[in-house]
């Protein structure tokens, strides 16, 4: 009871801070300096139609690299944590096999889901969406397969190769920017092309695709690791 009261009181204090922020808030009418720069310069700098993508992949590419690393790290640690806990393989009961309908349905859907995911991240510099969204969709294919058959096991080797290779290439492309263009992660190591085309915006589509693959691999890895804790 005392705990609840204390927490309420403290949250009241925090709420005070928040309400001060809220009441002191005046919405902007114009884009501020930074936003105006992005609005005006993105096309010239990066050649990307999706300004958010340009910011994510290029201007704040270091953040994104960190972000991808967060996922990599989480996947690795989830693997470590669960590997610790993996019980010595006792006698496994043969689980009930999934029904025909589920089996066929997931087989039918998986390629479509994968295709959609790839579409989303390949077009990340043109349309809403991008590597993270596409990657999440890729991983949803894994999830579907797991839901259909909880006992399904995935090749860790493939997932690992995918995540490592895409991550490594991301870093290498970033370093190429250092050598060939204006700095780490500069996308102008490839021609910017024409605005709105698939092969435009320099390295952005490439990087975003790598991110998509990596995100898909990381999520799949986490899902697979979590699934393996399931006892038959």
């Amino acid at each position, binding site marked *: 009871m005392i*705990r*609840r009261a204390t*927490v*309420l009181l403290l*949250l009241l204090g*925090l*709420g005070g801070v*928040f*309400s001060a*922020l*809220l009441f002191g*808030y005046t*919405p*902007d*009418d114009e*884009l*501020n300096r*930074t*936003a*105006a720069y*992005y*609005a*005006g310069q*993105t*096309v010239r700098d990066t050649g990307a*139609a*999706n*300004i*958010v993508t340009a*910011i*994510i992949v290029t*201007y*704040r590419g270091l*953040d*994104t690299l*960190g*972000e991808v690393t*967060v*996922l990599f*790290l*989480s*996947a690795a*640690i*989830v693997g470590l*944590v*669960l590997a*610790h*806990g993996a019980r010595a393989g006792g006698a496994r009961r043969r689980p009930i096999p999934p029904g025909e309908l589920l089996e066929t349905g997931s087989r039918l859907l998986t390629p479509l889901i994968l295709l959609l995911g790839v579409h989303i991240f390949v077009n990340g510099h*043109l*349309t*809403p969406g991008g590597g*993270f969204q596409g990657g999440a969709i890729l991983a949803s294919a894994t999830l579907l397969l797991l839901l259909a058959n909880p006992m399904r096991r995935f090749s860790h080797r493939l997932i690992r190769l995918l995540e490592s290779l895409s991550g490594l290439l991301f870093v290498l492309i970033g370093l190429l920017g250092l050598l060939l263009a204006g700095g780490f992660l500069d996308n102008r190591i490839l021609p910017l092309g024409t*605005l*709105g085309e698939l092969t435009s915006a320099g390295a952005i589509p490439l990087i975003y695709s790598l991110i998509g693959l990596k*995100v898909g691999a990381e999520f799949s890895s*986490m899902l697979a*690791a*979590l699934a393996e*804790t399931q006892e038959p």
Partner: protein
Amino acid sequence: MTEIALATGFLLILIGLYGALTNRNLLRMIVAFSVANTGVNLVLVGVGYLRGRAAPILDATLPAAEAPARIIDPLPQALVLTAIVIGVGTTALMLAYAYRLYLTRGTLDISRLRELKW
């Protein structure tokens, strides 16, 4: 509009924290923190919103020249994406921890993990 988003976001944060600080169950705490994180994300996008403007994606209807006058602030959108992904990462990590703790300690009650103190 923005104010409503901000107020909702703040409220979600407070609700989430209340849940996280009063529930003893690890899984409930994790869920509560997810609620709070959602609130933070709402605040993030709320701050970038400008009334009556379009998403910052150029196409035939939104040529580059008109962009500064017609789009919302793209930066918070980029930031929120990062924040979401990081949130996912930590949530996954906490879930894995909770699972391990349950395996080794047989409990999900945080008040029973007190062998380290003082």
